[in-house]
């Protein structure tokens, strides 16, 4: 059975406070990392995970007021061969909204050490570009303020979004502007960046 989900990984919960917040948003995501590039060396990285949550009412002139509680844990490790290894998520270092669209992101520190190259064949590296060494889940709760929708908003209670996120995604319904913009952000920014 498929669920009728418009925006996967984002759940908005109306709350009464504390002021000035009126919304609690639960954001979930999954990311990959290719980890250490030199066997036997512990390498540490700072990462940024950009979500599909965009703050409604975001205005570039106003710094958003928000508070967050975020956790990241390992969802998968390997593949690797027999060796000594370390996979570590050290800490969640911060969160914020990128200043162009108001898209929510989380920053964190990770570290890895592997004993051998994940694949001996250089051809495999070339084909895949990089070999993910481990994956992690992110769950962030965000206290924020979003202007409430009006009950007579024509965008409410229309459309069928069950196809989004499935293998054969199709945009249905009668709200093309909102859905197209959200989908474009999801595709272009729902990825991991490393600095």
């Amino acid at each position, binding site marked *: 059975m498929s669920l009728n989900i418009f925006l996967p990984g984002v759940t908005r919960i109306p709350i009464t406070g504390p002021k000035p917040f009126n919304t609690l948003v639960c954001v979930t995501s999954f990311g990959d990392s290719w980890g250490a590039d030199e066997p036997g060396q512990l390498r540490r990285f700072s990462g940024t995970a950009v979500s599909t949550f965009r703050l409604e009412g975001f205005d570039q002139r106003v710094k958003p007021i928000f508070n967050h509680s975020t956790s990241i844990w390992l969802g998968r490790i390997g593949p690797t061969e027999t060796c000594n290894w370390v996979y570590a998520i050290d800490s969640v270092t911060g969160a914020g909204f990128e200043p162009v669209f108001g898209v929510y992101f989380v920053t964190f520190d990770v570290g890895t050490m592997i004993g051998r190259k994940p694949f001996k064949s250089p051809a495999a590296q070339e084909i895949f570009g990089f070999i993910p060494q481990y994956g992690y889940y992110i769950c962030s*709760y965000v206290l924020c303020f979003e202007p409430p929708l009006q009950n007579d908003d024509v965008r409410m209670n229309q459309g069928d979004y069950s196809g989004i996120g499935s293998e054969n995604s199709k945009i249905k319904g009668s709200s093309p502007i909102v859905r197209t913009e959200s989908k474009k952000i999801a595709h272009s920014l729902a990825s991991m960046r490393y600095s």
Partner: protein
Amino acid sequence: MIVLDANNNDQVAGAKVIEAELGQANKKMMIFSGIARPEWFINDDGHTYFEDVEVNLRRTVLGVEQFSISGGLASITNDTSNFLIATNSFDLDIDQTTQELILKVNLAAQGEVTGIGRFSYQVVAIVDTQAIGISGVIKWRKEIFDGTTLTPGQISQTFKISANHKDRIAPPQGFVYDKLTPVAYGLTTGFMSDENDFIIPYEIPSAPYNQPLIVMVEVGALFRANGQINVGQISGPNPITLDLTNQGVTNVDFRVNTLIPY
């Protein structure tokens, strides 16, 4: 048993709590996140070892109505051997003495030079909270510093308010001294003034029960006054002990002074 403190960044990295009001008095949704650091290592690939970990989440509650916990491994290592590494279970409890929320985790490991350095957790709970906690005001004379130059955000950054547990330390050699450990932090809730003073109300909403607490107020660099700054408690009990019959203490007031004439 490994005991960790969410207020100590060396024991729990990046611990964060947010609270949402649900429209019912003395009932809140609390969301706790962090990466706990048990740094538990073994060196045996022939047996499976188990270890219990307790994380003091440092929030005082009267009861837990509902909760769910997500979590998993965050930092693991193995040195070329068969291995088993697991977070077996997560559970939530209330410390019967202090009424603080306690996260209970069971770990398992097997392998040579194998360990769980860190695990992540996220606790979502709907809790019954104490009505008041500790509250009071911080005052200073207008001549000392013009408080109107600070934004609300700067005011909250300027005053670090904490409830502290006191331990009397008697080293084998040297003087006896008191060691203060912060167990709950306060927040400013407004800005007022009267004829002579600027006044900042504050609250410490989650101070633990059944232990003597000393409230401390530290003043940051944004408070630009001439002379050395001194903060003293001017009303209210010291120390303060909360319990189920005395859940809140008000009028724990402080005054900021300078040590040279202005």
